[in-house]
């Protein structure tokens, strides 16, 4: 069964990958190791999960405004997620992606899907993201 979910586009783009659904909000700074690209906060339920190539679904954002730097660093080192799905418009991670494009490090889609609609995106599900912001769940 294929489900199709609409989103609000923050950064346009196409992507394909497996969902990594975070069980709790995270601060990328202090929560994601920019050297390994893994979740490094031992108190986070997804500790050690690798972000690279995943469609990262975030229930919310917390903490440091340096998270945009970590996002840029992940983009520069090709350790970034394939796409970001955030619960509400966020000035921090999307900024890392916008700056990455200015620096010619590439780009990834950033989409807003409200938290109550994120249930359709199960952890591990294969999804395809279209340029129009649709998310297809295989």
């Amino acid at each position, binding site marked *: 069964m294929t489900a199709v979910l609409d989103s609000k586009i923050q950064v346009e783009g196409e992507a394909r990958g497996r969902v990594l659904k975070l069980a709790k909000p995270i601060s990328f700074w*202090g*929560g994601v190791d920019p050297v390994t690209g893994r979740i490094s906060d031992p108190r986070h339920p997804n500790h050690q999960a690798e972000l690279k190539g995943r469609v990262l679904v975030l229930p919310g954002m917390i*903490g440091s405004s340096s998270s945009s730097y970590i996002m840029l660093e992940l983009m520069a080192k090709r350790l970034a997620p394939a796409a970001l799905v955030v619960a509400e418009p966020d*000035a921090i991670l999307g900024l*890392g992606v916008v700056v990455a494009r200015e620096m010619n490090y590439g780009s990834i889609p950033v989409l807003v899907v409200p938290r109550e609609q994120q249930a359709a995106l199960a952890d591990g599900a294969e999804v395809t993201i279209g340029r129009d912001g649709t998310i297809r769940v295989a």
Partner: protein
Amino acid sequence: MPVRLTDEERAIAAGSDAAAMSMRILAEMGAMLGAERLIRVTSSHIDGGLYHGDSGVHFAERLVGEGARVAIPSTMNVGGLDLITPATVKADPHRHEMALRLMKAYEAMGCWPTWTCSPYQAGHRPKFGEQVAWGESNAVAFCNSVLGARTNRYGDFLDICCAIVARAPDYGLHRAEKRRATILVDTSALSHALKASDVFYPVLGAWYGAEIGNAIGVIEGLPPFTSEDQLKALGAAAASSGAVGLFHVAGVTPEAPTAAAALGNQPPEKTIRLDAAMLRTARDRLSTVKGERIDAVALGSPHFSLEEFEALEDLIDGRHVKLPFFVCTGRHVVAELERRRRLKPLQQAGVTVVADTCVVVAPILPSRSGVLMTNSGKFAHYTPANTGYEVVYGSLADCVKSAIEGRVSRDEGLWS
């Protein structure tokens, strides 16, 4: 919806220099955040000077190479090195070189080399109602809440772009209607003794951030004499555990002469009656281990003020701390300690004063694991992931006593 730029702004964006790139990034972020226009800002605090990888150095050096200059007073948040006492930070040669290049790039753009996360205690204090663009979560929370100036939580890179073109996207906390509290936190069930103690404020902040996230609350029932350092600790902890950019304290912070005023004379969407058990849970979450083992103490997140140093000196009272004992602060405070001939006695008592940076952002702690004790909610939050250390939270007095005795000693009286 694209942001409507003025003719002047469009002309800047069409160029090929650093101001053009800054304006493009601002316009794109504005569109992403639903801003209809850019507004003028008059001050900036910049968080991008701390090394987290080579990409940020390349970004800053590209701005410098394209002729970037900040157009408004801009202070720098901490860097990755202690430029006053370089041996404090044990960075490998690559990291050292890149961290230094990054700091120098921001200086080359005309930013003030303050290197502190407490710029508001180093003389950078925008006025009530002033539109500004600040980065670093604790500085943002303080600037909005305690000074009543208006900023969003600007991420690394956007802060410098705002400073270069003296503009910011018009959204969120820049707008009066977005600053109204919707949640009322009633603290009347808590004891006066607890509310009078410094150890309460980081715990309140940690609870508040985790509970309220990015909503805006007004806290009612705190003493009218709540100090600036207590509000600083509250905001820093709240901004670590939640995306808190603004909080109100009834009768204390400038947009909350009363709780009703902070709520815009509307009923709260939610009222939370905070009790001692909820706070104890929040306090316990700040520690990752129990027991008596302690290997080091770290204070000063946000950077220690002169008043906090005075409290520390009183507690040490001529004794000597047994364990590595770090106090992180700004060079503005180090200069003042030296001028008053108080730096040497602190060092002789076993205290390492760290300037320009801090123990959770730079390799300063003696090893890669152990148990660190702190009185800072922010250090407690970030220590495990950033340093490999376990953490124990306690009051300033607990930290000093534990460092002198060489084992964790906490006064549980206030929490029972």
